[in-house]
């Protein structure tokens, strides 16, 4: 799922710090954004936009963090609106709802742990590529 790879060049201390922050951005935003899944995406997006002209290492990790947040947005938004419709509208708690929430929680947890791990590794200047997201980032983010 996670691969440590050799990057094109050795990132500087400052680059490693900024790249690591892009992952931390989504974690810090969880505190604010727990009920509203879009807050996490916005935090990562703002960080990404702010670092568009940064070095390749920073841009690469900002993109990977943004992509992971983007996919979680769909999962979490669906869970969020389903919950809202149960509380305020006529929907009831069903097996399907609980199953969805469990799967969403597992995916969120996996993403959360991976994000922490990647933030720590990136801070040390180690390049970490996620399964699917890493490949996608390689395609989007060019030198």
């Amino acid at each position: 799922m996670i691969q440590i790879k050799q990057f094109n060049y050795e990132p500087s201390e400052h680059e490693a710090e900024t790249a690591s922050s892009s992952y931390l951005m989504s974690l810090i935003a969880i505190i604010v954004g727990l009920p509203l899944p879009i807050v996490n995406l916005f935090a990562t997006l703002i960080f990404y936009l702010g670092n568009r002209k940064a070095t390749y290492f920073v841009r690469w990790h900002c993109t990977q963090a943004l992509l992971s947040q983007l996919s979680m947005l769909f999962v979490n938004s669906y869970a969020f609106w389903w919950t809202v419709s149960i509380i305020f509208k006529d929907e009831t708690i069903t097996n399907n709802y609980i199953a969805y929430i469990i799967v969403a929680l597992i995916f969120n947890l996996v993403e959360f742990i991976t994000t922490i791990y990647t933030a720590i590794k990136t801070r040390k200047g180690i390049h970490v590529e996620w399964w699917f997201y890493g490949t996608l980032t390689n395609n989007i983010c060019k030198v």
Partner: protein
Amino acid sequence: MKKIIIQGTIIILLFLASYFVLSQIDLVNVFKVQKVANKTEQKLGELFWKTIKETANENNNLHILESVDKIVNQICKSNNIDRETIKIHVLNKNEINAFALPNGHLIVYSGLLLNSENQDVLIGVISHEIAHIKLNHIMKKLVKEIGLSVLISMTTGSGGPEIIKETAKMLSSSAFDRSLEKQADIKAVDYLISAKVNPEPFANFLYNLSDKEYATPQYLNWISTHPDSRERAEYIIEYSKNKSIDYEPILSHETWEKLKIELNNLQEN
């Protein structure tokens, strides 16, 4: 590019497969969702009923209680509603009001009984409140107005008495959403038709409420808790249009008249 599509598809399939497998398990029972929800509602019902009871005396006139009980019994029987789930209470208060609390507590003020022009109006109002109970509107309104966490804190005893008092007041004197009111009206019409009660007097009652000249201070409570009365009267009439059957009174003429006399005596005392 092919690698990305394959990997992306695997992730999506993994998500869907986990969801499918988990949804085959009876998770509602595993997590005892219904049991927890019922227990919370039961505790809240008791809490609010205790608070409301402090605001007025409970009516213990046998004839009045039996008459109201007969109405509720008939509506429940005709609509396959478990009678045990509706706990009716009549309170001596001049306000024209009836409202539902969690766990099926239905409060009717003597002012409503006394001022109902005929039994069909009273049955209409009671049916409307039973519909709110059966459609679970009370818990939905509570969650929306004060939040789930405050409700749970009330059941564990950590909610302050002032909050409980204010919430009970809110339940007795504020409206549901327009859509919830409509749902309850339509359901009430179904209940009335099944119980062979004419819904038209109930609709007329609502129509009259929308007339400002009718809005004596006594009626203000009902108007504030049930806005858009004219519109509601119109859709009740429209919905019940082609459903006319042979209507039968639930209470005999004598019982209804005696009820009024008893209530008048009560008021004079």
